[in-house]
């Protein structure tokens, strides 16, 4: 009998547990169906999707007397969306059906780089002629649309914030909110460790942050990638690397998800971290009511970028899509992003804590906003002219230099700190801060003698970049006379290159084109070398030129990373050895 009671109790409990979430679940909130449906692919979180849909359907119903329903497609982060859209459009292009579209109307959120370079930059679509594929042509995945000029003029009195575009002049994309990047920190931890509140990036290089920095992996998170790029752009190549290397040496570990940074900081597992503005602000308010966690945007040292919306090529609902853009740029549409919940113009359920893009919102409504910061005045500052973007190389470089060999980096950093001998202590940072170089002559020896294989060509192609790198370092470390020598060496090299390119059939067309392009760049570079002021140009070209190679051969990126990793690992060991001498 007792056995049966037990069994019945277990069975009843089992059923109760099983049924609980099914019976209790809140029915999904959705706008009344029946009207038109707008399909939007977006990495935005549920809170943003909810508020935008609610506000837009209300506005649309009132203005056009017609119900509109937004069907969100949430297919992961920005990089997932890029992959999906590119593969779908490439498949369409092969069938010559690009204008049929992919069944989605708009894409919303992911940062200006994603929209301007990856979506507007688009794909290489084949043009099919009589004899099959004749040539290829770049087509954008976004479709330019024009919006009401009155709305446009009111929304963007200036086309730029600092030097970043707020919208694409042809209408490929329109910025809706602003994003900046900063430091999130925990007051309790800072107090316990005797640290002042950080104001800017270089504050985080303090050794007292050792083991207490929360950082995210730039190869997974687009927002931290922009942050690291911003540091390099603001501080310049050398000081930027100097800062990043130390901050990374202080890191506790590297989270794949950017949201882990504010979480870890708020739990006191880290003293400070780098993240996108609304993550920091949201966590600051949500945990400890602002007293425990703080967020600061380093004035003048961060970047402010637009977070856009765009219409996809072949969208079926262009009319409603344009209305959504116009709504989001209106005062009502802008108010949902930073007004409190109890404000009549604010959001219904979730406070989003994002910065509106209309400058007049700050002029008129700043006192009604939660975050009373005007990015146009308080944060944004144009970059120095000619500042390159390191965006494409940041993940690989940071992996090789800091993340994959973090134990070595950290040990070297600790060794420098713990060394008492002033002579050694002065010598160690120089070793610690070295960056990889390769001797031209050494690489040049590898040039194939008997017809180039693809792999060797790639290596060869690489050679020129090393030649450039060599010149760079000659200039930096040895002085100007060495540049002259290096230039002379490079001229020889270019002569050889030119002969190879011009010799018919020596190279596949694809490579010849690449070389020719690079060749021009090298010549431009030599011109730039003469002008020491423009050295910065040189660095950009140096680094950004890696990207096409990586794109063509995924192993080339691996090879670069591996070579760099070995270099840095060796270097950190040397620093540690110095301390033990």
């Amino acid at each position: 009998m007792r056995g049966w009671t037990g069994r019945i109790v277990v069975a009843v409990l089992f059923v109760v547990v099983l049924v609980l979430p099914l019976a209790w679940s809140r029915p999904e909130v959705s706008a009344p169906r029946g009207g038109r449906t707008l399909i939007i692919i977006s990495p935005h979180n549920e809170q943003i999707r909810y508020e935008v849909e609610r506000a837009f359907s209300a506005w649309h119903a009132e203005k056009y007397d017609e119900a509109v329903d937004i069907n969100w497609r949430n297919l992961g982060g920005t990089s997932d969306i890029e992959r999906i859209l590119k593969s779908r459009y490439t498949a369409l292009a092969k069938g010559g059906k690009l204008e049929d579209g992919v069944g989605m109307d708009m894409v919303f959120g992911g940062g200006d780089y994603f929209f301007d370079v990856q979506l507007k930059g688009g794909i290489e679509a084949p043009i099919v002629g009589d004899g099959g594929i004749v040539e290829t042509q770049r087509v954008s995945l976004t479709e330019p649309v024009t919006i009401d000029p009155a709305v446009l003029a009111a929304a963007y009195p200036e086309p730029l914030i600092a030097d970043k575009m707020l919208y694409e002049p042809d209408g490929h994309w329109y910025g809706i909110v602003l994003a900046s990047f900063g430091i999130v920190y925990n007051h309790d931890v800072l107090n316990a460790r005797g640290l002042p509140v950080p104001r800017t990036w270089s504050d985080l290089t303090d050794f007292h942050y050792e083991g207490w920095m929360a950082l995210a992996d730039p190869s997974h998170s687009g927002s931290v990638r922009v942050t690291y790029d911003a540091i390099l752009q603001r501080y310049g190549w050398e000081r930027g690397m100097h800062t990043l290397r130390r901050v990374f040496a202080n890191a506790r570990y590297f989270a794949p998800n950017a949201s882990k940074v504010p979480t870890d900081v708020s739990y006191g597992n880290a003293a400070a971290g780098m993240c996108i503005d609304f993550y920091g602000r949201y966590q600051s308010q949500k945990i400890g009511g602002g007293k425990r966690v703080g967020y600061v945007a380093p004035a003048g040292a961060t970047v402010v970028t637009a977070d856009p919306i765009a219409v996809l090529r072949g969208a079926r609902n262009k009319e409603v899509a344009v209305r959504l853009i116009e709504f989001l740029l209106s005062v009502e549409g802008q108010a949902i992003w930073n007004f409190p919940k109890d404000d009549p113009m604010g959001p219904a359920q979730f406070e989003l804590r994002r910065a509106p893009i209309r400058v007049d919102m700050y002029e008129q409504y700043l006192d009604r906003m939660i975050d009373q910061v005007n990015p146009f005045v308080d944060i944004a500052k144009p970059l120095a002219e000619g500042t390159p973007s390191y965006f494409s190389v940041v993940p690989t470089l940071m992996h090789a230099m800091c993340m994959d060999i973090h134990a070595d980096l950290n040990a070297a950093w600790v060794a420098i700190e713990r060394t008492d001998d002033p002579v050694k202590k002065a010598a160690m940072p120089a070793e610690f801060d070295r960056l990889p170089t390769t001797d031209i002559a050494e690489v040049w020896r590898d040039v194939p003698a008997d017809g180039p294989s693809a792999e060797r060509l790639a290596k060869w192609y690489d050679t020129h970049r090393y030649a450039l790198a060599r010149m760079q370092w000659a200039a930096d470390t040895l002085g100007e006379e060495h540049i002259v020598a290096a230039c002379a060496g490079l001229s020889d090299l270019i002569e050889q290159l030119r002969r190879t390119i011009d010799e018919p059939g020596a190279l596949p067309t694809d490579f010849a084109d690449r070389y020719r392009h690079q060749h021009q760049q090298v010549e431009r570079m030599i011109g730039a070398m003469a002008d020491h002021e423009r050295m910065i140009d040189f660095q950009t070209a140096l680094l950004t030129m890696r990207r096409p190679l990586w794109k063509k051969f995924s192993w080339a990126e691996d090879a670069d990373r591996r070579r760099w990793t070995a270099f840095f690992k060796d270097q950190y060991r040397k620093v540690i050895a110095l301390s033990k001498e």
Partner: protein
Amino acid sequence: MRANLVYKYGLYGVCVAFLALFLVWPIALTVLGGFQTQIDGRTAWTLRFVLDVFVDPVMRDGLINSLLIACCVTALSLAVALPLALLSTRFDFRGKTIFSSLLLVPLILPPFVGVIGLRMLLGRYGAVNSLLASMGLGDEADPINWLGGWRFFGVVMMEVLHLYPIVYLNVSAALANLDPSMEQAAANLGASRWTRLRRIVLPLIMPGVFAGATIVFIWSFTELGTPLMFDYTAVAPVQIFWGIQEMATSAQPYALVVVMLAIAVGLYLIGKVTIGRRSYAATTRASVAATTKRLTGGKGLLVLLPFAAITFLAVMPHVGVILASLTEPDTWYQSVLPECLTMAHYIGETGALRDADASGSIRNSLIYSVLAMMVDVALGLTIAYLVVRSRVIGGKLLDAMAMMPLAVPGLVIAFGYVAISFQVGGWFEARGLAVPGWLQVVGENPNPIVFLVIAYAVRRLPYVVRSASAGLEQTPRDLEEAALNLGASRWRTVRRIVMPLIMANLIAGGLLAFSFAMLEVSDSLILAQTSEHYPITKRIYELFDRLGDGPYVASAMGVWGMALLTLTLIGASMMLGKKLGAIFRI
């Protein structure tokens, strides 16, 4: 008779085809993928990617770390479980029944969920450091960095506390089968207690030890969820998980999978040949029940102590999860226990039981797991019946195939399904057809239900086959033969005689398949790519990173899962009694 043969081999063919399609094919695709490269649109063979795994310092370290984790976990699990198993077979003491079943609880409480609790307990400003501080220990400016500084050991500890029951069950079963007369003979010949243990008992239970240790080794070598939750990226499974992002372009993750698979299978075979061969167990069978010594008073408590200690340690992270699920956000901070409790993470607007996304994923998981369980029971019963009763030619092969998932990391199979989805998708696209959603993993609008159900089913098939085989071996054939003699058809005999007789085994096997499917991590993380189709594990993983109340709601979902699985285990052990251990054998 001929019709019978047709049925028999027809069923055999169906089973082999299923396993070939959903087990052998994905593994083969993955392995081949590691050796292929695209040059100018043509497929060429290369060893470069596989060699690169050993050249690349990052991947090499990842493999070494994974191996080290697996070795540490296996060694520690043995160290924990062997003495406990010896104690429980040798002695009777107060509380033995309760504690030997409590020992099994960690098995169904996955470390993946436990990590959430552990982070609350072991954070720098978490419960343990606060406890230390309140006792005047520890440095306030530099509290112990348990999770940051000791992630390797954190992963090892979590996995040991999760997996030792597998060793315990296997060793206990081997000890129970031990013929006590062997030991008595040795004792008569003057062997000391230690010599008897070393020379008689250990060699005889070696197959059981090997069986448990192999499962634990392969499990921990390929475990994805635990290191992922610790953000410990320097292990091979996590590198493969992130590598999937570049699936379409790079063969490198495939190559890493190939190396992992080779290591797992290689070690399994080496163990089987060196240790499995030296099996004396088959020669003797316990003819007398082993005598247990009754311990009372102080001695009984002394023996109980290790059981209580291990159980306490093993459920600690899960107690942490339960507390976290009840914590008002931000009030478990610099305090031993949460300062404010709330039910909001369960029943609030965004709570685990009410939120559309969270409860939707619970619903998804239930559907996937029930379907997987049904596939498993049908397939497991058929395979067991064919192998044990029908004695088909090639039965050994079928049995070996069904056991294969034990030696093959779940990650490899999941990865193989992704490769299948690309192949099948390519076939559709080449013909200008739209790829149906249920055949996509990464694509415009994928629905992972088919792949997930099959993945769950294949992964847990061995347990159901073992469970059903054990049942069939223990039921006499006479009853079936009598039914057949009386003119019942084969199908009717199975339905009316066989199934009722082994119902307990089927239910227990099915329930275990169900609970493992509910908390399966690697397949779920890789195969479910769209939010509306997330199973509970992927939702917990995502929620864990949501700002604000995310980790707490994730805990609440974990608690719900733990409650369901605990009830499942209790139900299964009520059905099966002591036979529960038989399922976790290879």
